[in-house]
């Protein structure tokens, strides 16, 4: 591990000196520092900031502090009652120990698990811009079928972020230039020609909270992984559904582990709104989204996987 200096953040708009990085639960950042992939010169610990509360919003929604630990989020009574998709997604991720450490902010900003990215000795356009992408012809079984580019096909590995995407979450950030907020989908950049640029945050901008709107439909999260527990997703689906008299009146869908960001399935939603809540229309909706998929040699199975997941999650909710 490269050496660094350590300090604690004292205010939300502290910002960051050049070469500095925020540290939250450390479950991703410390790992990447050990691997030599992350080499911050200064670590600024944000866990002492008062960002660890979940509070009710006036519109019936919920504000989740960026420092709320994943385990506390999943167990929060209102999250369990009103946003089961979120509780389920968080509990489907990592392990009890890791969830006690991992924070909301850190979870959203965790990096890809692409094996070449996690190996500083390998070429990788993300950790060493311009060095190439060995995953294209190499190990890409768990990489993207949507939203990738010829430069990078990494997937965003978070479960929590997929549920938050389906819930229309809004990210609150604060920095030396002031505070702002935007939909979660706008936090992430698609790789294009610049896969080393992953987030829209400015250097020194701190995520302070994630807001959920009130009044969702019924919701659920399903994740498929290579072993029964404690593994990253191979594919996952978060869904929020409202059905009236057999017709889909509102639906929000997001896919995990298939794209460089938690993938909001707008085309599928469009195809489903106003349609009968039947397996047939669920599959047709999935197809509408997956028509854009660009699978490689070893990950085409994800198309079928997501298609079936969409149908089974929506059937479970209707």
């Amino acid at each position, binding site marked *: 591990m490269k*050496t660094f200096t350590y300090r604690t953040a004292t205010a939300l708009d502290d910002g960051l000196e050049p070469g500095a990085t925020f*540290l939250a639960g450390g479950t991703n950042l410390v*790992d990447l520092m050990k691997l030599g992939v992350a080499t911050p010169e200064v670590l600024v610990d944000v866990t002492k900031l008062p960002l660890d509360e979940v509070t009710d919003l006036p519109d019936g929604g919920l504000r989740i502090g960026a420092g709320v630990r994943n385990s506390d989020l999943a167990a929060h*009574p209102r999250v369990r009652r009103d946003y089961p998709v979120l509780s389920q997604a968080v509990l489907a991720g990592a*392990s*009890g*120990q890791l969830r*006690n450490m991992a924070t909301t902010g850190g979870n959203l900003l965790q990096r890809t698990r692409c094996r070449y990215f996690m190996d500083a000795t390998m070429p990788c356009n993300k950790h060493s811009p311009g060095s190439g992408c060995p995953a294209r012809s190499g190990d890409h079984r768990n990489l993207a079928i949507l939203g990738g580019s010829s430069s990078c096909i990494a997937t965003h590995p978070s479960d929590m972020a997929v549920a938050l995407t389906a819930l229309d979450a809004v990210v609150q950030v604060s920095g030396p230039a002031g505070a702002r907020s935007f939909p979660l989908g706008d936090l992430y950049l698609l790789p294009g020609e610049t896969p080393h640029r992953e987030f829209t945050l400015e250097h020194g901008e701190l995520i302070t909270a994630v807001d959920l709107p009130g009044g969702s439909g019924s919701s659920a999260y399903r994740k498929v992984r290579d072993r029964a527990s404690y593994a990253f997703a191979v594919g996952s689906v978060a869904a929020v559904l409202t059905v009236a008299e057999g017709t889909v009146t509102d639906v929000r869908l997001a896919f995990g582990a298939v794209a460089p960001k938690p993938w909001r399935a707008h085309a599928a939603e469009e195809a489903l709104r106003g349609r009968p809540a039947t397996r047939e229309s669920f599959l047709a909706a999935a197809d509408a989204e997956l028509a854009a998929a660009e699978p490689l040699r070893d990950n085409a199975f994800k198309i079928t996987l997501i298609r079936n997941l969409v149908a089974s999650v929506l059937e479970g909710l209707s």
Partner: protein
Amino acid sequence: MDLVVNGDRHTLEMDPRTTLLDALREHLGLTGAKKGCDHGQCGACTVLLEGRRVNSCLILAVTLDGASVTTVEGLAHPVQEKFLEHDGFQCGYCTPGQICSSVGMLDEALSDDDPPELSDAEIRERMSGNLCRCGAYPNIVRAIREVAAR
């Protein structure tokens, strides 16, 4: 920095790169917590931080000034006897992590607003962050189940 470990306060001077796991093992001579993978993937390094189970290999010690840590050396919990009674281990390498994790897990279940029923499947899910290369899982689950039932 100050760290309270198993009730004793220690003042430590360390490179900021030192993980809690290395601080315990190398600086305090507490070798109960084990280094399995050093990347959060096995649970052998599990300890209790302010009573909550965590992977000590992914926590920088410098972030813990004033915090309180419990390692397997500081535990006297019924689950330990049950591990012995039911042969909840073979080589024993994962055991300190399994013990700390099960103590943390039982506490999480007990303090839950809506306490879960700790069926075998539920215990397995909640203990999935602790791998056992020897495959002692059936006896580990048995040991925990008996404590949970009380």
